């Protein structure tokens, strides 16, 4: 992650990466100063960057699918609102804005 730098100031130490898979499937990326030991606060194990990246990718895919489902439900609801408003004679542009219906166009 980004680190602020100050011109002319020597960093207190280099950051060292560590990767963890906790027993409940949580993926973790840690950074500590060189020479300091990362500490696990709950059961888990240190893994390679590749193992971490693989698990993180699984979680990202899972999260994307979850959010996509929510957004699909939003879209369906917005469409229903839009169509109801149009059915009541509201002009289409106004109905689209009132319903928040973008027909997949963001």
């Amino acid at each position: 992650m980004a680190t602020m730098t100050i011109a002319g100031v020597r960093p207190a130490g280099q950051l060292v990466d560590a990767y963890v898979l906790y027993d409940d499937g949580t993926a973790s990326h840690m950074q500590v100063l060189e020479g300091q030991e990362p500490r696990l606060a709950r059961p888990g194990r240190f893994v390679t960057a590749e193992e971490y990246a693989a698990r993180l990718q699984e979680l990202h895919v899972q999260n994307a699918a979850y959010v996509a489902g929510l957004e699909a439900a939003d879209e369906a609801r917005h469409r229903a609102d839009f169509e109801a408003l149009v059915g009541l004679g509201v002009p289409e542009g106004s109905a689209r804005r009132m319903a928040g219906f973008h027909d997949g166009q963001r």
Partner: protein
Amino acid sequence: MARCGCGGGLCNCSVVAGENVTVGGSGSPANPYTVSANVGCDAVRPCLSGGDGIAYDAGTGVIGAAVSPAPGNNLAVGPDGLFVPTGAATVSTGCGLTGDGSGGAPVAAAVGTWPYPCDPDAAGGVVVCDSNGVLRGEPRGQINFFQVTETRAYADLAVPNELTVVDTFELAITNPDACRPATVLVEREVDVDFVLPAGAGASYGHDTDQMYYLRNTGSSTMNDAHTQTTKLYQYVAALAPGAGANILLPVSMDRGSGGATYNRIQVFIRAILISL
């Protein structure tokens, strides 16, 4: 003998010179006996010896002062006799010392004046000699820094409605100062990514202190809504020299509603250890 009238011929006295003795005169008032002894130096020297502080040469008969050759002895034998120079002649002071060892200027530490309103007996530092005989002052002050940042990714977990510690983070610190306790200042940051369907709300906090709440009042899902919060405080009053401590950061959540979930918590724990 005068009563006997030796010099008058009434009686006779016989005086014989022994070894190294001569006898002169006739014993009369006008010419009395004169007894003289003549003893050479060689005969006397064996009778003499030198004690402490005396150098005696039995061969030459010279008697002088015995001056110890031990280092640091300033006694000298000069043409005028024994001489011990004053400190002023042998003492040369450098930085941190003053005086020349004389009666009027004894050697002393060169010190400054105490400019503070507090009592130096209670507040002053100390100067000691180390094992090599070198003067040493108070231990050097130290400022040490520890830090961890951790980002955990979760599988879209529900935000609880009641105050709950959902996860805990940790930073191990050790006071590297072998002399002084350290004051520990801790800065902690938390950032949580919430997914809030329309109408959902969620809150998170540090320990049990709620720091952030957001409710989605719109009609669309808010994906990865997040705000980073921070606190700075003194964690422990004094961490003993060489001692360690674990700084925990429990992240709590509550007020979860409407299907709110979280998928990411990022924390920073920074500790500054000050030993002065």
